[in-house]
């Protein structure tokens, strides 16, 4: 009898299944990842060691930089309701088309009289530096206060939850501007809010 030749087995493994799984996961992560929206007011947030993540819902963000204040609220239905309330309050009518465009805006920083023009702009124009001048906060015409108040009502109506407020300030922003915002919030008895910071590298 001749020797039975045992065929040498290849060490290559079948990677088809692994490849399938990998691409399935990849597809999942790509689809769930939200594309970063360009911000009309880019700020450099100070770093800190806190590791608490910011919640994404029922949240309003006040962006402070260059002495200007921008306002943004999370969730499209809330934004629609907010604009309705604001148009009632300031007697400015918005068309359904404008409301829809507004609901897609992450944040804005113009007096309400100029809001229509900003809504009509394309995303690129809107985010150019200097186009949006910030929301007025003077004592005679405190629109920021109104926006915050109406956004709280709108969040409560839509989601039946309290709106949280976070302040996203530029590291070099002078303290009086920040204090001004804190005072506006405290007038409405909001004593708890969050400061947005970026992660600090290990020291």
């Amino acid at each position, binding site marked *: 009898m001749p020797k039975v030749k045992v065929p040498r087995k290849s060490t290559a493994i079948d*990677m088809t299944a692994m490849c399938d799984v*990998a691409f399935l996961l990849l597809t999942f992560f790509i689809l769930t990842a939200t594309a970063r929206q360009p911000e009309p007011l880019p700020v450099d947030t100070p770093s800190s060691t806190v590791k608490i993540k910011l919640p994404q819902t029922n949240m309003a963000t006040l962006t402070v930089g260059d002495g200007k204040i921008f306002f943004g609220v999370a969730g499209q239905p809330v934004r629609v309701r907010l604009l309705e309330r604001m148009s009632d309050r300031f007697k400015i009518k918005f068309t359904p088309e404008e409301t829809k465009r507004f609901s897609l805006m992450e944040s804005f920083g113009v007096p309400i009289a100029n809001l229509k023009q900003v809504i009509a702009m394309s995303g690129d124009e809107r985010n150019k530096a200097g186009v949006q001048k910030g929301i007025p906060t003077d004592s005679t015409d405190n629109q920021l206060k109104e926006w915050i108040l109406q956004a709280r009502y709108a969040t409560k109506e839509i989601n039946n939850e309290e709106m949280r407020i976070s302040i996203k300030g530029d590291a*070099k922003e*002078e303290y009086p501007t920040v204090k001004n915002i804190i005072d506006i919030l405290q007038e409405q008895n909001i004593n*708890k*809010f*969050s400061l947005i*910071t970026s992660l600090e590298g290990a020291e």
Partner: protein
Amino acid sequence: MAELDTSSGGGKKGGGKVRSKKQSTRVDLTAMVDLAFLLITFFMLTTTLAKPQAMDLAMPDKDEENKEAKLDIADNRTMTILLGNKNRIEWYIGLVDKPLTAPTVTNFGKEGIRKSLIDKNKEVLKMTGNPKKGLIVLIKPSDKSNYRNLVDILDEMKITNVQTYAIVDISDPEKELLKRDGIY
């Protein structure tokens, strides 16, 4: 290991004897899997790490109606931190007109305010003998300080584990103090 068999099929050599020839359609997927996992890692990390961090801040309640109803606290437990310009700070213990520890100008960082905070907190804890009665820190940012200073000092509170702290408006004698020491 990695191999790419590109030999053109078994053809018509007949018989089922030559098994290995059937693998000819196989492509090596190692590189593809590598790439896929690299991308997965990238997307996982960017989606979770890009979320901003939030530092919770509770301000003392502004009770406009009964201003008299204020809580008295022991002055030997109170440390006041004044935020001046150019990232400098000044601290003292007690009241501004008769401080128990003379006002000291220092800076942010490990050797600056953090050291003083840790030392003083230990001293106060020893003095009161009650772990709940630690140092009370009043943070008073001046108009010349910036937002980074505020976040930094709040961060120091977290690092040094000071439980009681508040952000308070700066008073005129304290502004004078900052001016005297040239950091206003």
